């Protein structure tokens, strides 16, 4: 279609589907006992040291399936609402490349491990968007080709490093359910958090633990009432959220411009693959699908089918922790936390564990659960986050233990210290381990309280609410609210409600 004949565009709509590769952090590789570089212990190994006969594809070597990789994949599948196949199969994807030692990649073609799931994400347009999961299958990663010698010197030929070869890779494929780049990024971040929570990956993007490949096209409605769909573009190997967003946004406008220029629409052979140029923030054509490979998939005769029986499935299910989304909702509900605070605490599995043990300690120290949650969260997200930023150390790794965080929360709740005092205590306790109350006293951080005024307000309250006071004396503790309220009002809100309550009970002798 010539540009001058193109009707005017009324509206455009973006359609994106996503493929995600997650490197599973098993100790050993997908089909051999060689250590895996996705496991933190081995991540900085010298080139070609995580190799055995199976990884190198030596004559006579045979693959043996890593059951843990299957379990991890099934956990991710379950978390994404997928059906876990009772029987799935390994297939060979045949092609030649120097980073592919066997001349084929073991993957799953028509019987994947997980299929047919969905998760809801908060949509940029408001409300939630349901993202369908077509499938999630396991495969082995390839090696890497490089042109740099160890030490950084340039090498004329190509160097093969097989450390990554054979690392278990979970490939998740979504339906084309995304309407904007923002939602894709939200989903990708959600998925990363989820996978980290499940303990299946370290989630370090720079190390390629997760790689994204969006499939993008645009539906163009023209003013003459017709609809055009631009050819689908797959952008390969994006390993940051920034690149993911950038590539989709760039394609959203580039495809409309291309259509205006050449009028090409979706159809057989029209699909192409592009790469992302991070410096110029553009996508670049890699290949048209016409010269796509024939991978000659066929079932791998070296491996048996994966049979997952009820008992194995149950054991995997039992391993599933509370998922990040559910946990976030619970934090908001139970601890009265802000959504944004809950997101920070749940964003990292270790931080979340730390928070939860602080909260437990605070409960042990006598704080009611909701206040304990809210109290320690406030400390971690203020005093903790501040020092974490300053020192470049994660909040849970600052050196302060959960019992100490709980101790500060208790002092705050008792009104013994103020916010500045809490912050100061936190700072000291990151450096040395002491009892927070003793430390607060030694450091002169305990607030001087006006006990005489408190006594006066309590007496006045009892006098003014004689009937309620009588109820409390006879054991009806519910009546205490009115008495405490009076004191709070009299103090102008400065009194500590908890303390007032305790003193009131002491005075009235109705305490438990």
């Amino acid at each position, binding site marked *: 279609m010539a540009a001058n004949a193109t009707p005017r565009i009324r509206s455009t709509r973006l359609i994106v589907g996503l493929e995600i590769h997650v490197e599973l952090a098993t100790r050993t590789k997908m089909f051999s006992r060689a250590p895996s570089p996705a496991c933190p212990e081995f991540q900085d190994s010298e080139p070609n040291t995580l190799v055995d006969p199976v990884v190198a594809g030596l004559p006579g*070597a*045979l693959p043996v399936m890593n059951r843990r990789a299957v379990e991890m994949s099934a956990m991710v599948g379950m978390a994404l609402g997928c059906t876990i196949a009772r029987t799935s199969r390994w297939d060979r994807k045949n092609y*030649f490349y120097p980073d592919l030692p066997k*001349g084929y990649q073991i993957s799953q073609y028509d019987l994947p491990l997980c299929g047919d799931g969905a998760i809801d994400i908060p949509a940029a347009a408001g409300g939630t968007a349901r993202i369908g999961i077509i499938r999630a299958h396991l495969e082995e990663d390839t090696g890497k080709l490089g042109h740099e010698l160890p030490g950084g010197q340039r090498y004329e030929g190509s160097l093969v490093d097989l450390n990554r070869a054979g690392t278990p890779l979970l490939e998740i494929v979504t339906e084309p359910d995304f309407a904007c780049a923002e939602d894709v990024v939200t989903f990708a971040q959600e998925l990363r958090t989820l996978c980290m929570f499940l303990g299946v990956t370290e989630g370090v993007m720079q190390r390629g633990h997760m790689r994204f490949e969006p499939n993008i096209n645009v539906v163009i409605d023209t003013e003459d009432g017709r609809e055009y769909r631009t050819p689908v573009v797959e952008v390969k190997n994006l390993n940051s959220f920034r690149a993911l967003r950038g590539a989709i946004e760039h394609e959203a406008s580039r495809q409309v411009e291309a259509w205006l220029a050449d009028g090409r629409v979706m159809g057989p052979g029209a699909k192409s693959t592009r790469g992302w140029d991070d410096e110029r923030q553009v996508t670049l054509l890699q290949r048209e699908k016409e010269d796509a490979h024939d991978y000659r998939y066929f079932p791998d005769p070296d491996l048996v089918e994966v049979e997952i029986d009820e008992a194995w499935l149950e054991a995997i299910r039992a391993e599933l922790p509370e998922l990040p989304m559910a946990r976030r909702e619970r934090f908001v509900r139970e601890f009265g936390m802000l959504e944004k605070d809950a997101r920070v605490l749940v964003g990292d599995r270790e931080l979340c564990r730390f928070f939860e043990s602080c909260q437990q300690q605070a409960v042990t120290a006598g704080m009611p659960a909701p206040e304990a949650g809210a109290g320690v969260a406030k400390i971690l997200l203020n005093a903790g986050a501040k020092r974490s930023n300053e020192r470049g150390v994660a909040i849970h790794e600052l050196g302060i233990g959960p019992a100490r965080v709980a101790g500060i929360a208790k002092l705050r709740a008792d009104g013994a210290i103020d916010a500045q005092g809490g912050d100061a205590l936190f700072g000291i306790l990151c450096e040395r381990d002491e009892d927070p109350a003793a430390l607060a006293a030694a450091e002169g951080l305990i607030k001087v309280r006006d006990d005489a005024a408190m006594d006066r307000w309590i007496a006045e309250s009892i006098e003014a609410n004689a009937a309620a006071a009588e109820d409390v004396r006879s054991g009806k503790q519910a009546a205490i609210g009115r008495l405490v309220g009076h004191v709070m009002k009299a103090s102008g809100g400065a009194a500590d409600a908890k303390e007032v309550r305790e003193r009131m009970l002491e005075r009235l002798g109705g305490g438990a």
Partner: protein
Amino acid sequence: MVPDPPRELREVVAAVRSGTASAEEETRGILDRIERFDPGLNAFHEVFAEEALAAAREIDRRVAAGDDPGPLAGAVIAVKDNIATTLGRTTCSSRMLESWRSPFNATCVERLLAAGAIVVGKTNLDEFAMGSSGEHCAWGPVRNPWDPERVPGGSSAGSAAAVAAGLCHAALGSDTGGSIRQPAAFTGCVGLKPSYGRVSRYGLVAFGSSLDQVGPLTRSVADAALLLEVIGGNDRLDSTSAATDVAGIAAAAESGTGRLDGVRVGLPSEYLSDSNHPAVNESVRAAAAAMERLGATLVEVHLPLTEIGISTYYVIAPAEASSNLARFDGIRYGRRAEPRAGEDLESIYARSRGEGFGAEVQRRIMIGTYVLSAGYYDAYYRRALQVRRLIGEEFARAFTACDVLLGPTAPTPAFKLGSQRDPLSMYLCDVYTVNAPIAGICGVSVPGGFVEEDGKPLPMGLQLQAPAFAEGGLLRAAACLETALGRCPLAC
């Protein structure tokens, strides 16, 4: 003094274990024969004389010290050169792997060594086990010890020739479509193809992974049973190896009183084809009669899919081979063509593989690549898998009526070198052997008498087949038949 020709494996082992014979002397005897006869046979790629003698001395030392030297103590074994050994090279008789040294032993080799066996050398084969004559070798053909103008069969050509000529006590071969049984038939050995999954494939350089099995070539059925017990059994390095217990097979093979009362022997009419050599059909009939005399019941069964097995096999095996041999790309190991200025990767692959692989291997890679290609997969590969299932079902039906199947191992005795120029007629040599691997069942070839050609006696083979993991019954029937028909002597 060591007897020459050498004794059978079990006699040697018994003598070495009891201290009445020296493993070193036995080994020396074998090495002398290799020196004498192998130049005319080309059965060995490599002979490990010093290493074998050192291993033998160690066995003798253990016997003298009162330690158990293992169930194969002093047995001198030759290993087909497509089975990985850390000793020497593992070439698969291919220029591609001319200088390949494996950093690991195949599981079957590890088990042999642990049992006190002495690995004496690596034997010649059709390149990557592709061939039925022993002629498709990178370094010259193997000759049949019964008539050097004739082939020993293949692909375990060197292993069969070495056993038949007394250049070892037994040998390991591999069978994908008949590569143990057919050369055993052509040379007068016993050749056992175990059920799929019985012997670990770890370390066997893959040809058709869903068909390949390692198995023994021996001079007697009892020797084959003993070797199977040593090399068989579950291996966690091979996902397709079966958990089925391998112990007791040797005992089962020797059980009874040499009679076959109650055993139902199926004799498929399809196995007695008019296109077989007449002497072959005669020897099968004679064997049937012998088994009947031993108390067996002859049962008529039908296996109409027998012939179609060849076309099924020559789709499935090349398909798997095309993928299995993709790793030989000259990048990490193996032959790499001298790079030319400005040459691209594709061209280096093509030239390395073109130089490294022989014609028959290239032919099968091309067939395999074709049948797996988009647009042809359904017509060839998928169809072949369907027929594979039908062949399995046909055997299963036959085995409701009989316990073992009797027939010829090959349609003819050994043919002359260079006489099978047409690949298709070569493929037809496997008509009676391809179906056992297709169905995963076990089969054994035992000597079935001689036919005279050009004034020379040529051995013929009888094949017995039994259901998967029924090697005990299979070998017992084979042992009875062997006793009834008599052993085949050494060729030289």
